[in-house]
């Protein structure tokens, strides 16, 4: 019972601070909203096409790019604004048809179309589509130029001949289809909500360890031992306090995102259990940090580092599927987030307890180990330094 009282004090201390409330409850929801709006869902790559000098051939290329049918939105853009728009991210990529495009082709010179993209897979994808479209146009022009040269006619006549033959000639084609199970659960906010949940649970738990560091520094722990309270009760209370804050935050985020953003967490019991397991890891990590750090500043500094670093490594900012196999292994070795991300992904795809059993087991095991280490550290700091009640060993020694 005393453990509960200690936990309650801990909880009150955390919730009384208004800036804490902002960090624990408001920020995470805000981030889910902003991130979900910014990067959630299936984004259609936006490509700008700028034509430095208009002409029938240049316009035809633009029309072909616009009609590519590969799920890319192509819009006309001004020449001067194209590169800045890509640089600022208003566009994912840009295509610049140079001045003198028509004239150069008619004269039989080679022309280069400039392609500029932001780094990343979207750029790679758009680049391949643009190359294919330009390649198709280049093929037609090459045939037209060849015919014009062979028969001594203007290019436009050559192209007319080519188009006529192309329409009647049986041609090789490409048929494309996709297979496999779609990993995208579809909801705009689904992935964002679960990854932000993990990120914030861990950061909160680690930064909350500042309170424990202060408790230790001020000698509150030792004074508590002067009362008829066992070391076990104190440790349980401190641990429970950490856990309650994280679980409160986790539960709040799950319910709020489900109500506000229509996030589907999957099987509610399994999702709840997974959140609890991860919250235990986070709470235990906070307890360990609180038992190790010498100053509150050090605790919050390392809390930010571990909270953001492990989250990034664990696939909360970039899906684990995009990691190289080596980095995926690293993620699962160092970051508890990776296991929880796997679990939430499985649940999002309609999985149940059976599908997340391994993830749950790993998380709980980590939580137990971290708690055990933290308790050992804290016990050693208390007078007597053993597990027996400090009262029998002379709590007044300090």
């Amino acid at each position, binding site marked *: 019972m005393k453990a509960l009282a200690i936990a309650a004090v801990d909880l009150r201390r955390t919730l009384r601070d208004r800036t804490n409330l902002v960090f624990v409850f408001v920020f995470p929801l805000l981030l889910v909203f902003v991130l979900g709006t910014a990067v959630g869902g299936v984004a259609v790559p936006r490509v700008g096409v700028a034509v430095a000098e208009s002409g029938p051939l240049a316009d035809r290329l633009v029309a072909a790019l616009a009609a590519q049918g590969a799920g890319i939105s192509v819009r006309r853009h001004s020449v001067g604004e194209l590169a800045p728009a890509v640089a600022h991210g208003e566009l994912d990529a840009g295509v610049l048809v140079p001045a003198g495009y028509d004239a150069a082709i008619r004269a039989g010179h080679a022309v280069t179309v400039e392609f500029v993209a932001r780094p990343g897979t979207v750029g790679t994808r758009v680049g391949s589509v643009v190359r294919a479209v330009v390649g198709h146009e280049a093929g037609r022009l090459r045939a037209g130029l060849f015919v014009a040269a062979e028969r001594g006619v203007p290019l436009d006549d050559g192209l007319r001949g080519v188009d006529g033959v192309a329409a009647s*000639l049986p041609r090789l084609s490409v048929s494309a289809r996709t297979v496999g199970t779609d990993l995208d659960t579809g909801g705009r906010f689904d992935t964002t909500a679960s990854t932000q949940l993990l990120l914030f649970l861990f950061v909160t738990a680690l930064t909350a360890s500042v309170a424990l560091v202060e408790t230790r520094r001020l000698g509150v722990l030792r004074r508590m031992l002067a009362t008829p309270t066992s070391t076990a009760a104190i440790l349980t209370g401190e641990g429970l306090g950490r856990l309650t804050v994280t679980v409160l935050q986790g539960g709040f985020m799950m319910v709020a995102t489900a109500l506000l953003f229509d996030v589907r967490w999957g099987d509610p019991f399994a999702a709840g259990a997974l959140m609890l397991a991860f919250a235990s890891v986070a709470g235990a990590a906070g307890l360990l940090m609180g038992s190790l750090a010498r100053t509150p*500043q050090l605790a919050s500094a390392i809390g930010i580092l571990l909270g953001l670093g492990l989250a990034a490594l664990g696939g909360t900012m970039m899906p684990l599927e995009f990691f190289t196999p080596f980095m995926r292994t690293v993620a699962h070795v160092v970051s508890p987030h990776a296991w929880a991300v796997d679990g939430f992904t499985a649940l999002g795809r309609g999985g149940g307890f059976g599908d997340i059993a391994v993830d749950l087991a790993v998380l709980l095991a980590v939580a137990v180990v971290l708690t055990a280490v933290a308790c050992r550290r804290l016990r050693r700091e208390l007078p007597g330094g053993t597990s027996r009640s400090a009262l029998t060993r002379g709590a007044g020694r300090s």
Partner: protein
Amino acid sequence: MRAVLILAGKDLRLRLRDRSAVLIAVVIPFTLALIFATVFGGNETPRPFAYAVTDLDRGPVAAAFVDVLDRLAERDIVTVRRVADPAEAAELADGGTIDAAFVLPAGIGTDGTAAIEVIGNVNAPTAADVARSLAAAFVDDLTSVRVAAVAAAGEPHDPRRIAALAERAARFTPPVSVVDVSAQRRILDTRTWFAAAMAVFFLFFTVQFGVSSLIEERAGGTLGRLLAMPVPPGAVLTAKLLTSVLFGASSLAVLIVATTAFMGASWGAPLAVAALAGAAVLAATGVTAVVASLARTAEQAGSWQAVLAMLLGMLGGVFFPIERVPALKALSWATPHGWFLGGLGELAGGGSLREVLPAVAAMCGFAAVTGAVAVVRLRKAVRP
């Protein structure tokens, strides 16, 4: 003036001895930038796309296509495995073992209506799109040669003449090609971007160690003792602000050098980077000083500053690509972070001091406004 330097020197020495200050100023931003760049950088230079090819034709045309793939494999752009059975290829794509499979049908070279089948895994849309584009480019090339030959031959239809023309047409280079100029444009690469984002984000925490110590000195009673000495109150305030500026500037300088040396970040023209960094330090000091002037206790100042630093960082686009939402992008210009990162973007394409002047001016504007408010408010705090 001497008093200012002595006070600031004392504060700086204290901070350098304080392990958590050094952690926040240098170690954490550097480590996080390294982690982010590793996690996200893998995406920038993708692993080779894993393809499989099934050749049911075994003729020269199919061989030419496999040859195209092999040449890409030599450059580590793709990996190609040969699979005899088309069903097996589809299964590999289905299970995600490969990103996409090509099935080259029998008669690809002779039957004009044959189709190259591209089977892509649904979770590898980029690799599947690239596969489709590769096949399309190959088919387009073949078709254009055939069409050119037939159109040039005209009537009557003479297969031998067409074959001879096709050979000539194949040597005719297509007049249009695509050149990727991304590297020359004003886009920060992933490593530099994360180095800069983390540096400016933690700068707003680093500068707190100067101004906020004013509150600590007041609480600890040392401020009163300082003011009892023959030191003008303005000197104490100036010293605190100077500490913030110097500590912030040195942390940025160390981060810029360290990320360049150990992470391969390329910040751009040194003079322009220095101007941007200096302006950012001033802006951060100003903003932080305003918060310090409003807070009653050091804890309060610390948590308000943390909230503000998070909020400004978030809006400034430090954590995620806000430019996807135009309204958020517009908001980012209301933060020093947005201007700092924008200014560095101008430098990525080889810009110089002139290109970053707007960003420098904007951040100096932040510094001037917030600094004025802070000085007016804090002057009261250091009145004896």
